[in-house]
């Protein structure tokens, strides 16, 4: 996706970003790779035997995997290094085979010290309409001036 970071002047309160590319065909391999990278080997995320035994239909992704994917859309938008705060809440499980739609909405645009900041609300929804993650981000944006 485009990595042309946004400028403060280009952003207005209420702006919604709904045209980011979806993340398609989430698979067990995604969860296994995230387990390796993060060190989180909770078997619920890679062992179907364990996950189904406690009543889940299959393994499901780490909340922080989805939060990580979401964070990369945010840094592609605002620029790595410009993020000041990032928060997520886990609302639903991500199952293999699902596709993810990631959106953002600018809630506030303001000055803080000498920084031009925005606050945005974030969400990750799967192709069944289940909300998986909600979140918020605060970023300091460069100015064109």
């Amino acid at each position, binding site marked *: 996706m485009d990595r042309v970071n946004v400028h403060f002047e280009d952003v207005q309160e209420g702006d919604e970003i709904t045209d980011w590319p979806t993340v398609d065909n989430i698979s067990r391999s995604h969860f296994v790779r995230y387990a390796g990278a*993060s060190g989180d080997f909770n078997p619920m995320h890679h062992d179907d035997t364990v996950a189904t035994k*406690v009543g889940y239909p299959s393994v499901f992704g780490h909340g922080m995997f989805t939060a990580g994917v979401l964070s*990369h859309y*945010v*840094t592609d938008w605002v620029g790595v290094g410009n993020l000041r705060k990032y928060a997520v809440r886990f609302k639903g499980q991500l199952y293999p085979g699902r596709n993810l739609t990631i959106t953002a909405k600018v809630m506030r645009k303001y000055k803080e010290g000498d920084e031009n900041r925005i606050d945005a609300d974030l969400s990750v929804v799967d192709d069944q309409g289940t909300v998986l993650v909600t979140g918020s981000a605060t970023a300091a944006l460069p100015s064109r001036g």
Partner: protein
Amino acid sequence: MVDKSIIGTEMGGSSMVVERGKIREFAKAILDDNPAYETEDPPAPPTFTMAMAHWPAPSGGQGASLSKLGLDLLRVLHAGQEYEYLGEIKVGDKLSTRSKISDLTEKEGKRGGTMTFITSETTFTNQRGEDVLIARTILVQTSKAAS
């Protein structure tokens, strides 16, 4: 029931050297193909320090563990995560952490029973003594075993 008096309890810490290969591996795992992560001096992805969260505390593990605080780990889920970025994290940095329980609230669950939200706050300090990151992990303990 978890006692509110656990707020402020120190949870001990750990340390980690920020490695270029680990950053690249982590970026790949979150499907981030930003070429910045392929450079000699990559930035750390926003949630990179999760790679540190699962490392055991140094031998002896000073401080209380969650189970010692009265939490039943079988009923505990990760409800949320928050970060405040205070400074840069660079390859080669040695980060040390210190953690404490910073909040505890109770809420009635939709299906009955009490849900207890526990926030553990971790401060990451680099080798120059600068605080570079505050991470908060919000855990929820349901009143019945999760099923």
